[in-house]
């Protein structure tokens, strides 16, 4: 038995370093995790609030909506209604984790295991993140975006820029490619893109233009179109409204198109996180749980620490029941952690039921490779469809309701029993399918030669329409970007 790494609640950088090394040792040698290099930063509560309000990114362009989030979070925090997150982690390389200075040493250890190894491994290995996000380039891109938008504000006025951002933000959910994949630029093209942007920025900056009387536009050099896929042809229908408007809107100026592109890229960057809430948090929670227990077994942390850890761990994975006042949907930490712990159990000590449901890996003993395979190749929807076991459904006491708008009552369609397992599982999986949760809106027609009207279509899923009041507001935003009339029709699906 070795001496514990720390016994006091207070932390200092030497202890952090020592503990980090011990965690790293377990993560890399025992669990064989594959992570980006880590950068751990200690921040104060105020800075944590700052980070909250910029979508948890270390830098971001300025917009009033972030100020609104900040004002609200600050009021909540100061009023004691909400506690701050213990950590924030950013999908970038190096992977940046923020630790809150007020955490005790045990919490810092937990947070490092959770963020710097759990989330980090998930970011680096999950197929969605690998395909859609560019961890090496994101910080550079954000820095470009911030500068670009600040420059636009200087040149075109804050109100103009704010108007475009407002409209673009309203379409963020419809600003991603779901089914079609944009051509993945090669390394050289990314570099070329960056060079062109830098060159443009340099060229565009001219002290003299700032002294021009209002009304005279500086000659705006066309922004180089790095995707190079603008061929004048619209490929309809188009699901990515921001992309469509950026490429085809008849009334936008070059800088406005670039702003749409920035917002679209941001939306696309966050899209994988939206699809993997359960898996991402489950992976991080499972990793910190495993690491902390190994540390305890090896005498690296004291008994007091492990109790403090268990206290905070159990509140993180607490799932209130549906009729509880505290119920706010299914807790992704709870579901993810329960499923992953269950996979380990199935690998190590399967029951007859497990062997029937999961013949591929029940009793294999090698739980780590099963989990790693799941982390790498699934998203929430497919992960639940594939791995949710009857035992977890029984533990959560899941039941499914069928709801029809005109009915006066919900009907219980399936519960956690022999006949219901598969249906409950399928329905829960569908609940996590963002393709169904987000309205499916497509551009179906644009009359560029005639009255320039833009036709959109909402393809209803099982007859559920858009919320009327917000629909009107968002359509106004689209009209601002398109510059002409926009119609949005509801269409029943063919199913």
């Amino acid at each position, binding site marked *: 038995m070795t001496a514990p790494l720390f016994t006091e609640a207070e932390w200092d950088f030497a202890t952090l*370093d020592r503990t980090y090394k011990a965690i790293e040792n377990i993560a890399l040698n025992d669990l064989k995790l594959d992570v980006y290099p880590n950068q751990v930063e200690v921040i104060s509560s105020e800075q944590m609030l700052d980070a909250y*309000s910029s979508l948890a990114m270390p830098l971001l362009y300025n917009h009033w909506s972030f100020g*609104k989030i900040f004002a609200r979070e600050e009021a909540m925090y100061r009023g004691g209604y909400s506690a701050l997150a213990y950590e924030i982690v950013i999908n970038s390389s190096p992977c940046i984790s923020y630790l809150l*200075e007020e955490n005790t040493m045990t919490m810092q250890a937990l947070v490092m295991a959770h963020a710097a190894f759990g989330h980090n491994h998930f970011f680096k290995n999950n197929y969605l993140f690998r395909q859609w996000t560019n961890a090496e380039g994101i910080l550079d891109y954000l820095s470009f975006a911030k500068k670009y938008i600040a420059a636009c504000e200087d040149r075109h006025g804050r109100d103009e820029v704010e108007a475009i951002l407002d409209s673009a933000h309203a379409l963020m959910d419809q600003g991603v490619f779901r089914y079609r994949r944009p051509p993945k630029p090669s390394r050289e093209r990314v570099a070329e893109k960056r060079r062109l942007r830098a060159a443009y920025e340099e060229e565009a900056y001219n002290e003299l233009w700032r002294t021009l009387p209002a009304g005279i536009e500086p000659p705006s050099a066309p922004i180089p179109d790095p995707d190079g896929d603008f061929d004048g042809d619209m490929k309809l229908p188009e699901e990515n409204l921001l992309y469509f408007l950026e490429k085809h809107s008849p009334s936008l100026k070059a800088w406005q198109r670039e702003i749409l592109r920035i917002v679209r890229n941001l939306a696309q960057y966050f899209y994988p996180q939206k699809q993997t809430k359960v898996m991402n948090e489950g992976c991080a929670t499972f990793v910190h749980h495993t690491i902390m227990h190994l540390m305890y077994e090896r005498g690296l942390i004291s008994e007091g620490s492990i109790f403090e850890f268990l206290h905070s761990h159990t509140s993180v994975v607490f799932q209130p029941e*549906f009729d509880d006042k505290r119920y706010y949907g299914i807790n992704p930490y709870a579901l993810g952690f329960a499923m992953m712990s269950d996979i380990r159990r199935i690998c190590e000590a399967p029951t007859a039921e497990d062997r029937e449901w999961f013949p591929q890996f029940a009793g294999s003993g090698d739980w780590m490779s099963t989990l790693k395979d799941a982390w790498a190749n699934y998203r929430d929807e497919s992960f639940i469809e594939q791995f949710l076991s009857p035992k977890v459904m029984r533990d959560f006491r899941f039941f499914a*309701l*069928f*709801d029809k*708008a005109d009915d006066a*009552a919900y009907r219980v369609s399936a519960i956690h029993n022999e006949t219901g397992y598969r249906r409950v599982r399928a329905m829960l999986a569908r609940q996590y399918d963002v393709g169904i949760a987000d309205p499916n809106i497509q551009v179906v027609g644009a009359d560029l030669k005639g009255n320039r009207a833009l036709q959109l279509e909402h393809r209803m899923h099982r007859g559920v329409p858009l919320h009327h009041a917000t629909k009107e507001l968002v359509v106004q935003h689209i009209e601002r970007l398109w510059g002409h009339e926009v119609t949005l029709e509801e269409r029943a699906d063919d199913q």
Partner: protein
Amino acid sequence: MTHFIDRRLNPKGKSLANRQRFLRRARAQIREAVQKSLKDSAIADIAKERKVRISTKGTKEPRFRLDPKTSGEHDFVLPGNKTFSPGDEIKKPPSGTGGASGKQASDSGEGEDDFEFTMTQDEILDIFFEDLELPNLVRTTLKETPTRVWKRAGITTSGSPTQINILRTMRNSFGRRLALKRPKLSEVEALHAELEALEHEPQTDEAREKIVALKERIAKAESKRKWIAFVDPIDVRFNSFTEQPVPTSQAVMFCLMDVSGSMGEREKDLAKRFYMLLHLFLKRRYKKVDVVFIRHTHDAQEVDEQEFFYSRQSGGTIVSTALDKMLEIQRERYNTSDWNIYAAQASDGYTQSGDARHCVEMLNGGIMPLCQYYAYIEILDEREMEVFASEDSGAELWRAYRTVADLWPNFATKRISKPADIFPVFRELFKKSESAG
């Protein structure tokens, strides 16, 4: 390889730019909320940060979302089944209240109608000033933090090279050299001279031995001089300075107001703004500001702020009783050698006939010599304002006070009928504080 980075010392307030944009965006709602909260707050509290509740109107961020309540069908899964079996029916909660489906619908935001946040002193003052149409110069001066001066605060071991205290440094250096027995330059030179003298003498064995010994001593002395620095970093001392607030004296502000029936809600609100602004001015110049509230009808009383603004009293109007009261309180509690005295009187201009003359006598004879500044504001409605367009016409009290103003430069009279009229009263006072400070 890991990096731990301590970011705690990085500049805070990264969200400041966003916050300003937000305040600008929600300007109309925030203004309304601030004005309301100022109306309900005490005079001395105006420059404090406070919570403001605004509606989200104007700061909505709409997104497309589904509305399964109007039509269509969907399934959803919940945890925590206790008694349900397949086929059971659960009555839907009445729309509007929580319940399972209600929560789902509000998941997409738009749930809250208004929210509360804290505004800083500067932000509050900005909005307060905006309404009063204060010139920019005044705004910045009022928001300025109290002046501070750098004062000597002894000697420290660290500091910038320009602040080296040579005397202390050299004294330390000297003491250290003495204690460590550092050979002086003259001693070494003497040894050298001795050596040279010996070398010129005939070379006997004895002399050679002496030369060797001398050389040894010289080498030792010289190396010791090298080891023991002339000025060592531990000798160095710096002058230290600390910032100290400029000592300011104290002031008392007498608020005099006519509370007879003719003073309505609007008049009192205008008067209150006037007192608030005066308080701000005084707060900036004096460290301690006391406020005394004296209300009067046909007789005067000292009251607290709540009663001053909100309670009613019936009776006639005799202004001089308030002046009497003020003198009485001043004699009792506010000695002119310790206190700067300011007075602000608000009235609708009516007083019992003959009383105005009495007031003038009291002001000229007793009060004005004590006061730093005396402001009289007459609150009229817009119609009256037109009638009394000229400074010379007016009711009895006004005409009487005009004679006082001619005598005393620190006596100001002004008629106001809307908030924007208030500031000009302060112009004079402000000029004075500019030249004084």
